[in-house]
């Protein structure tokens, strides 16, 4: 292992590691497209270009950011936006529990790794078979998603200020992006049950609870997990 504690130097890439690096960078580039959609959405929900960019730099967890923007855009309060977004952000803590077993290094390194602990980096890391590949996949995916997500946000926020999102159907780009995002979670029986139940709960609560809180209500559906898969 290199002195960087799992981060490979450019000189000692085996073909296997090269494959991991290229898959990780590709994933980052794809996420950049999501970043553009987020940037457009954030400014159309009344955010400034700076707010959109600071959000992507500091919050850096896509689904939570989309949730916050979608709740505000739908007329929900800041409180409703924060609570729904935080519920989704909580899963990064769960990913952290998993990644803690695979990453080592100083406290400072782990504090940086924490910011990069998201869906993509965790998924890419846990898909690898040995410790070094896992660390490489985690760091390269995390860093490339970070770069592309923020670049995408900037481009989207600037472009979004000058176009009408509805003319281009960009309001539907949000839920369409969510569809692509949720698809892997429907691969298990419990995932499908929780998804369908969450959708139904949301639909029936929308007319009766404050805007955005229907998302929080749907959180009850995770209790499907009490039963063994």
């Amino acid at each position, binding site marked *: 292992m290199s002195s960087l504690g799992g981060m490979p130097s450019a000189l000692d890439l085996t073909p296997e590691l090269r494959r991991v690096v290229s898959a990780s960078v590709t994933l980052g580039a794809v996420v950049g497209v999501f970043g553009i959609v987020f940037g457009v959405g954030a400014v159309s929900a009344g955010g400034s270009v700076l707010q959109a960019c600071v959000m992507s730099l500091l919050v850096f967890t896509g689904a939570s950011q989309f949730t*916050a923007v979608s709740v505000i855009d739908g007329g929900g309060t800041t409180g409703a936006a924060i609570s729904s977004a935080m519920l989704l952000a909580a899963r990064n803590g769960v990913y952290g529990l998993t990644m803690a077993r695979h990453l080592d290094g100083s406290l400072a390194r782990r504090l940086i790794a924490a910011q990069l602990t998201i869906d993509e980096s965790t998924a890419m890391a846990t898909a690898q078979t040995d410790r070094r590949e896992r660390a490489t996949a985690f760091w390269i995916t995390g860093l490339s998603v970070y770069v592309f997500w923020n670049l995408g946000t900037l481009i989207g926020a600037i472009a979004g200020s000058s176009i009408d999102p509805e003319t281009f159907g960009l309001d539907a780009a949000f839920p*369409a992006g969510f569809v692509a995002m949720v698809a892997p979670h429907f691969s298990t029986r419990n995932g499908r049950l929780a998804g369908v139940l969450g959708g139904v709960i949301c639909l029936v609560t929308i007319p009766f609870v404050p805007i955005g809180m229907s998302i929080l209500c749907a959180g009850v559906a995770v209790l499907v997990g009490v039963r063994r898969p």
Partner: protein
Amino acid sequence: MNEISWTLVLVLAAGAYTCKVLGLVLIGARTLPKVVDRCLILIPAALITALIVKDTFSVGQDLVLDARALGVGAATFAAWRRAPLVLVIVIGAAVTAAVRAIS
């Protein structure tokens, strides 16, 4: 009409980072009860599906059926046929825009 505020941006930034640090650095490799693990892992399925429903079928507190339903329906079909992510988004937006343009 509510807008994105600095309060939202900064509270969310602090909260999201706290979750990440809690998991990776503070709790670390300690394990949670299996049943808690099984429930937490279902959060994205439940909440993201709820977001799809909300963004497709509602305006504020009203349930509506409009161009978005067809767009998101087309995107769902594309995702089910394992279309790449970018294509799923483009199909969703393009179908919605097209339905709006002709109706």
